[in-house]
């Protein structure tokens, strides 16, 4: 198992390298290259200031060097092992403990690692709340449709799940926000962010006070998350429900299910104790692919609901042509995706003892 884990982790490295090379190439191939794109702003600066900034960037990032050199330089900064670089941009000796330096965002003027450390937990929270929710609904609907296959519930759900799957996230987000968050209609939910300002001073759990009910930090957070989570989840549970149904039907017609029925088990037991566990396998496989799609989904959802997560950061970084930020977001999201695949493979061994990776 350990060797397998090690191999998988080592295989991640070329993929991550490839991802960053791809994105770097896109940026380098753009009109004017990275250097021009970075210096687009600052038109209100004095010439000497601008020249000073240019000199600083050139020294810091080697923007006057050809693109492959720039990439290697960036890679050297980011990788935990590599050459040390001193203040003047001269190469020192090879070191194994120089640490990772993600660089400074051009746009915010802050270290990229700080910005990411702020934003990643928010997106992860959003996604980790969404995944169990998605699976619960998907399994419920899938089981129910498979159990009375061909019935009105099955047919209706089959159609409406395909319809749900086709609703663009942005339409759902805009309509939900417009009708349930807006003053013009029902103002049931907050319109932006993941907690209100006063929630910082509240105790964690909801409770009663003299002044009345205090919703507490937790409830406030839940209240803010409802609409975004609905937006993020419906598309994936629609796809998952179809998959669950297929998988359960397949197993219900299999030999072992027939044997279980033949020995006199109740249909309920056949479904839940025998078929259910086996039907989980494709659901686990698909969960790996779910994470990238959720990350992409949070890009839209975070923009609609003004949540300061990775998704919004990604759009801001790309619009601001912020090289360091774009590259870091790229490899971090790629890394998260790969970790997602790895976790899915592990869950696979848990659900199916026949699978082993040795």
């Amino acid at each position, binding site marked *: 198992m350990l060797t397998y884990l090690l191999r998988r982790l080592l295989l991640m490295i070329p*993929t991550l390298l490839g991802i960053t090379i791809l994105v770097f190439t896109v940026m380098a191939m753009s009109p004017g290259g990275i250097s021009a794109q970075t210096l687009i702003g600052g038109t209100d600066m004095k010439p000497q200031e601008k020249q000073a900034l240019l000199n600083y960037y050139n020294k810091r990032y080697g923007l006057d060097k050809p693109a492959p050199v720039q990439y290697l330089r960036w890679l050297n900064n980011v990788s935990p092992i590599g050459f040390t670089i001193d203040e003047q941009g001269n190469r020192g000796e090879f070191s194994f403990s120089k640490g990772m330096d993600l660089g400074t965002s051009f746009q915010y003027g802050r270290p990229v690692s700080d910005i990411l450390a702020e934003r990643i937990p928010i997106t992860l929270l959003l996604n980790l709340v969404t995944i169990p929710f998605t699976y619960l609904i998907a399994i419920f609907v899938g089981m129910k449709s498979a159990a009375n296959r061909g019935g009105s519930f099955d047919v209706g759900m089959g159609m409406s799940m395909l319809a749900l799957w086709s609703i663009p996230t942005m339409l759902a987000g805009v309509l939900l926000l417009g009708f349930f968050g807006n003053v013009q209609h029902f103002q049931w939910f907050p319109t932006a962010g993941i907690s209100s300002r006063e929630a910082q001073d509240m105790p964690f759990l909801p409770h009663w006070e003299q002044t009345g009910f205090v919703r507490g930090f937790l409830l406030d957070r839940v209240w803010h998350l409802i609409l975004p989570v609905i937006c993020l989840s419906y598309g994936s549970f629609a796809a998952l429900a179809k998959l669950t*149904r*297929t998988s359960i039907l397949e197993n219900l017609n299999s030999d072992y299910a027939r044997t279980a029925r033949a020995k006199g088990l109740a249909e309920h037991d056949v479904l839940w104790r025998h078929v259910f566990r086996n039907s989980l396998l494709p659901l686990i496989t698909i969960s790996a692919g779910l994470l990238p799609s959720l990350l992409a989904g949070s890009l839209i959802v975070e923009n609609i609901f003004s949540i300061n997560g990775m998704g919004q950061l990604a759009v801001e970084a790309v619009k601001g042509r912020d090289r360091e930020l774009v590259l870091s977001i790229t490899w971090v999201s*790629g890394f998260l995706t*790969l970790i997602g695949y790895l976790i899915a493979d592990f869950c696979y061994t848990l659900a199916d003892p026949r699978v082993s990776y040795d």
Partner: protein
Amino acid sequence: MTETTVSRESFSAHIWRKTLDGVGVKVGLAWIALLVFAAVFAPFLANSMPLLISKDGIISAPVLRYLSVEDAWVLATFFIALAVYRLRLGSGKRILLFLLGSAVAALLVNMFLKPPVLVIYDDFRTITYTDVDWRIMPPIPYAPTDYLRDLGSKGLEAPFKTEGHTHLMGTEENGADVLSRMIHACRISLSIGLIASGIALFIGVIVGGLMGYFSGIVDMLGMRLVEIFEDIPTLFLLLTFVAFFGRSLYMMMVIIGITGWSGYARYVRQEFLKLRKQDYVQAAVASGLPLSSILFRHMLPNGVAPLLVAVSFGVAGAILSEATLSFLGLGVVDAPSWGQMLDQAVKSSTFNWWMAAFPGGAIFMTVFSYNLIGEAFRDAIDPQLSRKAGVN
């Protein structure tokens, strides 16, 4: 004794018949047909200028005079496609003829069509155009960029709430008719969907085909490439491409195509891995056929069926991508598109449901239609799979 009947139906005809069986797919095809109709005849359906007027006994058609190069080319291509479809030729020749025809049409239109550079929509509501014997207006008498200044339009009017001029789906902030903008936006959605997934298919088939045919080291390298493209959230890759390059319609098509090929490559690779050791492929190799012939003439037709299913889902995905990009403010700037209209709905100070619901609904219907078609297609092609899925 039962009589055996031999079906003379070809495989493709059989698939067609089975695909068209369901209700859902008919709804889907009907919607797509409606979109095609709207896209081709957009200037005749929603425009501020009269289709035909008769003034002092002289009949003229202002719409034709103001027809842009693009409009004319789309019209010409549509009729060429119809004509080619009616011809009794092989499909390869038909496609070639169609491409040739549309290229010639593009050339002719560019050479001979000189529409007036400046279009002032207010003029069509002045006495020169209204004081006539008779005139025929388009069904929606507002152009997508006609902001109705002379009519005193305040913008953001709900459907049917305006005085003096009716807007079936209301107006947007600047006062342009929402329905008219939607009709003109059909073109972007349809063309992006088809061309972007065409480009993706092209790249995917070549990469996947080479991977599957050679296997071994080529396969391994290719799979890494596929993984790289799959592990970056597609939307993010798209954003990066669009932000660092231009924002023209053609650029968007290419970009959506470039970022979307990995799924096709996987499909083709899987099929080709199965096929590469088959006798007929070995025979083709042994008779010294060139690689392109082996790959695309002999192997591809046998692995094309599941690919077509992926394509119809891919078109839906491409349309969604364009809408999302436009929604995030990174779409085509000079022409209305559904995603951009949705973006406008969010950006405006108040929430106006008609600005979100109608364009969003159009995106939904289009994506839903392509998904329905894809689903029906899959069930027809792979009866075993669909039986397992409990469809029939």
